[in-house]
């Protein structure tokens, strides 16, 4: 399958015609002290804020052009919110997001529009992320219409090329989402994200709703597309096996903070943070004999409420190593071990749990 014709920008998008292509290895996106607190209010007429859900509470990371950064953690740790902040579907309450040198933290809808060509998102649920009343053709063509982009050979041809590229039958142009299976719908979502040749795609749990055999197809497709179009992925997922498969670097989040970030093999084989150990050891391995061999770390209790996170280290309430210092001081995210391997723990320890 050949690639689609390059969309030519005309009209409204001229201001953006000098799109610079990122060089592999350069910093594409930088996030500093990113924060998203959702206010909790009381009262009906006069609302006063009584607290805040600290979904994302000061995180820093960089995305290097061409890489895949996996973002893992349990539900409620703020990984999806981070994805939504990076794509600016939500506005941060603090911190800074820089995309290719431009500060996009507080851009409004109109100012944000040129960047939407470069930053796209694939959603988790292929059932609710597609408008049931639009045909597949309309759905995938929407980015072209919104950005006012005309393609060589017309939008219809561009859409059909995209459909073929992601493994859909181009003849199904006029079908509605309900006529497709879950895996096919996820392909529609991918085609839509890919339409404008973005530089960065945030994948928010793109395969967790799919069957294993279909999941493998979609993961392979994402791999191929990354090579073909020089994409950078922020891959948000809770499945550590899928993340290991697809990522170059992995960041582990817990209650709104990054607790450990490292290159893939470094993280899976030489992790230092007790939460990472617990998370990795809990993954059930599809190997009956290995299950008996492996040591498992049993975590007790649930994740504390992000409304009122524990003082000091947030993991201390479930951590078997916790001491007084953990309640008093928040451990900083500092380099431990190999370059680029950061962990936030007062008592880091290398442990191979996989």
């Amino acid at each position, binding site marked *: 399958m050949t690639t689609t014709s390059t969309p030519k920008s005309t009209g409204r998008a001229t201001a953006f015609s000098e799109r610079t292509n990122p060089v592999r290895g350069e910093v594409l996106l930088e996030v500093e002290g990113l924060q998203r607190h959702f206010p909790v209010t009381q009262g009906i007429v006069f609302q006063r804020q009584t607290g805040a859900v600290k979904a994302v509470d000061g995180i820093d990371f960089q995305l290097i052009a061409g890489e895949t950064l996996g973002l893992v953690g349990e539900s409620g740790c703020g990984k999806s919110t981070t994805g939504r902040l990076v794509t600016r579907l939500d506005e941060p309450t603090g911190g800074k997001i820089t995309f290719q040198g431009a500060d996009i933290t507080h851009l409004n809808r109109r100012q944000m529009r040129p960047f939407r060509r470069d930053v796209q998102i694939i959603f988790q649920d292929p059932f609710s992320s597609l408008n049931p009343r639009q045909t597949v053709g309309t759905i995938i063509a929407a980015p072209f219409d919104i950005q006012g982009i005309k393609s060589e050979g017309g939008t219809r041809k561009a859409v059909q090329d995209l459909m073929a590229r992601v493994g859909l039958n181009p003849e199904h142009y006029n079908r509605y989402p309900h006529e497709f299976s879950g895996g096919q719908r996820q392909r529609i979502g991918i085609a839509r994200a890919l339409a404008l040749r973005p530089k960065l795609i945030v994948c928010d749990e793109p395969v967790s709703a799919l*069957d294993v*055999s279909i999941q*493998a197809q979609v993961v*392979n497709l994402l791999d191929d597309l990354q090579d073909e179009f020089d994409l950078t992925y922020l891959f948000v997922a809770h499945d550590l096996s899928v993340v290991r498969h697809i990522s170059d670097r992995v960041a582990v989040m817990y209650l709104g903070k990054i607790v450990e970030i490292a290159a893939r093999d470094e993280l899976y084989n030489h992790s230092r943070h007790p939460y990472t150990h617990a998370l990795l050891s809990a993954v059930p391995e*599809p190997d009956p004999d290995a299950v008996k061999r492996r040591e498992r770390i049993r975590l007790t209790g649930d994740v504390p409420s992000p409304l009122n996170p524990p003082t000091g280290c947030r993991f201390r309430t479930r951590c078997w190593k916790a001491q007084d210092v953990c309640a008093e001081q928040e451990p900083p995210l500092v380099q431990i071990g190999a370059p680029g391997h950061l962990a936030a723990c007062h008592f880091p320890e290398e442990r191979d749990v996989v």
Partner: protein
Amino acid sequence: MSTTASTEPVQPSGARDASAFLEVRDLHVRFPTDDGLVRAVNGLSFSLQPGETLGIVGESGSGKSVTSLAIMGLHKGSRAQVEGEIWLDGDELVSMRVEEMRRLRGNKVSMIFQDPLSAMHPFYKIGDQLVEAYLVHNDVSKAVAKKRAVDMLDRVGIPSPASRYHDYPHQFSGGMRQRAMIAMALMCDPRLLIADEPTTALDVTVQAQILDLMNDLQKEFNSAIIIITHDLGVVAQMAQKLVVMYGGRVVEAGDVRDIFYRPEHPYAWGLLGSIPRITGGGDRLKSIKGSPPSLINLPTGCPFHPRCDFRDKVPGDACVTDVPELLQIGGTPHAARCHIPSPERQRLFTEQIKPAL
């Protein structure tokens, strides 16, 4: 292991297995719909001993959940057509009347559903929902039932169970709701517990807690467990016996180690190849081409043939015309439903599939 495939079909014929606690024989479940007849389960047979765990794996639409609902008798009163026999401890469930079935449900057989939020009633307190089943099946006072419920909540690891007894489902976290649901299922010491994707909605750390809990409780109560899941990691950890379903049929069955280390059906090979491993690298996954079949228009012959990479190993068009029988492999409980002869399948697995796993 012997390499000669016996020609003995595993299909039930003649006497039933008297030692089995649960025996499903040639079960068919069909749903008439406007679009046609949905053949969800087509001739399913398996058996289970007390204290044993059977894993049923398959993709969505392979008939695994429909099977569990049939065992619970939850198709009764719907339009579903259920045929075949389900023997539970000497009783036949398919022909049983709803009133009789109701005496078994929650008592001898109980079920853990996938989504505890929708399986629990949002208007009633957790405790009241636990007590209800106990009062129906046991002639005891409310106070006794309440004590039992608090005990059970404690056993599944709910902190301060006596006060949590009065909470509503929405006041529990996802993991706690699933624990409460397990407590509810265990209220009457069921001999058979069916867990339909019990941990799919949970995080890995909570999943590990719940699976440990189910293992501990099984050891204590010696109940039989059927665990239905699409997660091969979960069955590897939980089950002793495994059934792989595809298109409403068993395509491979056997001991869990048979299926993980000596699988013989191309679909099982595909499943094992398509899962990314926590120990693995970034090698390309071996996905199965195409998508699962429609149960209204099941492919003729072997339902897996449109997605199978090994059709050329079978002479002629047998894959398209004949449904292969589920044949035992060398007199062991391991059985597969494939036209390729067993020695050839074993050769293909060791030479082509295993090195790539």
